[in-house]
């Protein structure tokens, strides 16, 4: 009997082993190697030498890197609430059954989930291109003149538009599913008490799906901080609109692959990962604190 127990323990470990080996080889080892190589620098003359934390100093004192960090923070501070507000509004309306054909709408809204960020950015670039893009043309016809969506003032709002297009449906789908799991007796009781549609949505249902919203804030914020695909594709259309370190991820890519300074890029990637970890930790702690107060 005892031998059997040990056997069973061993088979449990064997079931998880393939994944753990892959995890070690393709996540843990590379991360450790990146940490190690971030302490070195390669010079054209002289080869690779140990430089300690100098690479971290270079990144942390780079104005370009910090401009990118501030840019994605500002971007996330606008994009995440707007995306979630839209997603919650539509999820709540569909859940309440006050919109006809909601099954069709739910399918349509989710379709961008199947569209790679690269293709979404290409489509929107063509739609918004100054002069040629039909949206730019329509705006001109209505009397807004020549709007340049790729100008330095509008490039971030343009990316915002693309990201809202891509991710609202995904968030809506998750919120819709959580809203559906609220027992209908709760809603009925609120209606009997004379609550309107809006107060049912905001006072009854919103608090009940708060855990899903907190999770989505977290997921969307991490996504926003890593912003890369959309600006890098827009850069193909209007190179002058997107700088070297437009976002921290672009800074990492352009430093490592563009300039061939791999060790510096590794240091930047690690700083970015730590920043993202910090932001999520603070967010998590704040949501916990709020939860305790309530």
């Amino acid at each position: 009997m005892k031998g059997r127990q040990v056997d069973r323990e061993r088979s449990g470990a064997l079931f998880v082993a393939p994944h753990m080996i892959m995890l070690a080889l393709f996540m843990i080892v590379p991360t450790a190697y990146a940490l190690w190589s971030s302490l070195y620098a390669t010079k054209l003359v002289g080869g690779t030498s140990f430089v300690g934390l100098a690479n971290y100093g270079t990144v942390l004192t780079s104005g370009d890197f910090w401009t990118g960090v501030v840019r994605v923070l500002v971007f996330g501070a606008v994009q995440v609430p707007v995306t979630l507000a839209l997603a919650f509004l539509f999820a709540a309306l569909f859940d309440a059954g006050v919109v006809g054909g909601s099954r069709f709408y739910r399918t349509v809204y989710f379709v961008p989930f199947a569209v790679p960020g690269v293709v979404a950015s290409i489509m929107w670039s063509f739609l918004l291109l100054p002069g040629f893009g039909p949206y730019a043309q329509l705006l001109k016809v209505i009397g807004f003149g020549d709007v340049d969506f790729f100008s330095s003032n509008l490039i971030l709002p343009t990316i915002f538009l693309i990201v809202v297009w891509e991710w609202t449906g995904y968030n809506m789908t998750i919120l819709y599913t959580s809203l559906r799991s609220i027992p209908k007796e709760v809603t009925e009781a609120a209606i009997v008490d004379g609550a309107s549609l809006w107060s049912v949505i905001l006072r009854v249902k919103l608090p009940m799906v708060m855990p899903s919203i907190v999770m989505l804030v977290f997921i969307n914020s991490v996504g926003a901080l890593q912003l890369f695909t959309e600006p890098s594709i827009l850069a193909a259309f209007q190179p002058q609109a997107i700088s070297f370190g437009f976002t921290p991820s672009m800074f990492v890519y352009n430093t490592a692959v563009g300039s061939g300074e791999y060790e510096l890029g590794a240091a930047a990637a690690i700083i970015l990962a730590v920043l993202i970890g910090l932001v999520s930790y603070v967010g998590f702690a704040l949501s916990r604190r709020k939860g305790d107060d309530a």
Partner: protein
Amino acid sequence: MNTGAKASRAQMRAADESGVPARLYGLRRPTRILVNGLAAAFALFILAPLVWLVINSTKSQASLYNSFGFWFSGSFQLWQNLAALGQDVSGAGVFTQWFGNTLLYAIVGGAGATALSALAGYGFSRYRFAGSQALFMVVMSTLMIPLTAVALPLFLVYSKVGLVNSVWGMILPSMVSPIGIYLMRTYISASVPREVMEAARMDGASEFGIFTRIAVPLSVPGLVTVFLLTLVAIWNNYFLPLMIFSKSKFYPLTVGLSALSRAAETGSKADVVPVLITGGLVTILPLIVLFVLLQRYFRGGLLQGSTTG
């Protein structure tokens, strides 16, 4: 919170059929018109770029630039544009090759991720062994590691071991899916009864035999969900392949199309833009069809809070 994927799906279905009747809210007509109008407007916002893509895949380069984007113009060029996908029009590479690569990466990577997730999910849900809980915490903490932070380290290791410009360099890391393990563990906990496993043991079945003959058949919907989610994540992945591939014959669709869009803008050769647009259409069609047909599997996975993009 969740008693498991099966239970939550049943709940969802029940809820779908029995919401609170909308008339109880006693909405006034203007409000009804407003909310319906909002939903329709947002649908238009979502669909317009896709409609634009379909319309413009039928145009030649010249009529693309000389006509209004939301209507057809010039001769019907769709077949010529599709044929051009098989050629290297820009010097950036051949679209059909990228398509084949993406299929390979997504199917092999997705199948591998599903197999590894099923094994590990089963191990974590049905066995207790030394360090099992600690290992599960390790797996869950890798959920928090941002993808962009791993791509460069992978590239650095690859350049040491010769996996740069290798098919395996793309496929193998795609098989690591912490969310897949989480989903499979939840699913198996809810749908594979311990009593059935115990009965099979009495009949002398091996532990692996119980997994293949009992756990796998009982978990098919969960497996489909994990396969679809990892497939989509690999299909749409851009940062990792951009890092590790420098030869266009290895590019997946995402990296190929971005190379094509740069070629289109530098405008060295003619007729790149129709290939870019038609290529974009061909890139998204398989996933949209897959998604519309298998919606409920996607939703089942999303509910658990998946984020593989």
